[in-house]
């Protein structure tokens, strides 16, 4: 009598887990997005994370904007300081910059990378440093995208080099950052 009961339990368990997986897959949570599609490398022992969000650009910036938050979904982004000489920016000269909250931007895509407390601390240290001393912005080699890459690199997460926000969020989504 115990055998049919065992079968029934297995069938129900399989059906429930299948339905659950289908639901997660439909909602975009399935696979290993929570560890940048790289579960062998990234683990989540603490539930802490780095959130990278790709935003719609402002005033016709069709490349968009990207920002990062550590243990928060409120990201911060690297920008040329307001009122800089735009000709200097376009000609590739270094101009004053600012790390400012991305509040008000329209979020288009978010990737969450679960990290360890040590990684979080290292990344947050660099963010704090950039808030105090953001250095000089350069459109072609030190922009919002490279800033996010540098912050991730501080936590040991290396991404393919690019200055395009959309390409970076795609690399993160596809698990190309190791």
């Amino acid at each position, binding site marked *: 009598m115990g055998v049919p009961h065992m079968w029934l339990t297995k069938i129900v368990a399989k059906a429930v887990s299948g339905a659950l997986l289908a639901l997660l897959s439909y909602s975009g949570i399935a696979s290993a997005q929570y560890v940048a599609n790289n579960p062998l490398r990234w683990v989540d022992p603490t539930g802490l994370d780095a959130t990278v969000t790709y935003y719609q650009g402002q005033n016709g910036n069709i490349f968009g904007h990207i920002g990062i938050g550590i243990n928060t979904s409120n990201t911060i982004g690297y920008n040329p300081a*307001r009122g800089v000489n735009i000709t200097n920016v376009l000609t590739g000269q270094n101009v004053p910059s600012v790390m400012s909250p991305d509040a008000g931007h329209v979020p288009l895509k978010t990737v969450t990378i679960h990290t360890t407390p040590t990684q979080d601390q290292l990344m947050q240290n660099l963010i704090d440093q950039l808030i105090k001393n953001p250095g000089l912005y350069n459109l072609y080699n030190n922009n919002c995208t490279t800033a996010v890459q540098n912050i991730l690199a501080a936590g040991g997460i290396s991404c393919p080099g690019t200055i395009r926000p959309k390409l970076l969020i795609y690399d993160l989504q596809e698990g190309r950052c190791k």
Partner: protein
Amino acid sequence: MRFIGLFSLAGLFIPAFFLTLWWSLIETKLAPHLWLALKIETIQILFWPSSFFLMAIENQGTGAALQTKIVSIIINVLLYALIGLLVWYGLKKQRWILYVTAGVIAIGWYKLLTL
């Protein structure tokens, strides 16, 4: 001159196309399909190289944004006019200029796409 004029017009209308269609209609709708958005962005970079300037608009006022867009479009028109001139000269006078132009464009595209 007509040849150069046609190239210049293309240099004007391509940015106008991407600015209006991409920005106002496609950007938000393509967000769930990043790979497709990236493909379109790649085409945009190939045919409107100075569109990279628009990344400078972030955190700037509307005046700076307008100035950047105008500069970006003017540079694209000039670039297309130059290419038109070289292509015309290559077709009419010296064929090697055509090949050199194609080579320079290919190198330029490679540099742009690896940014």
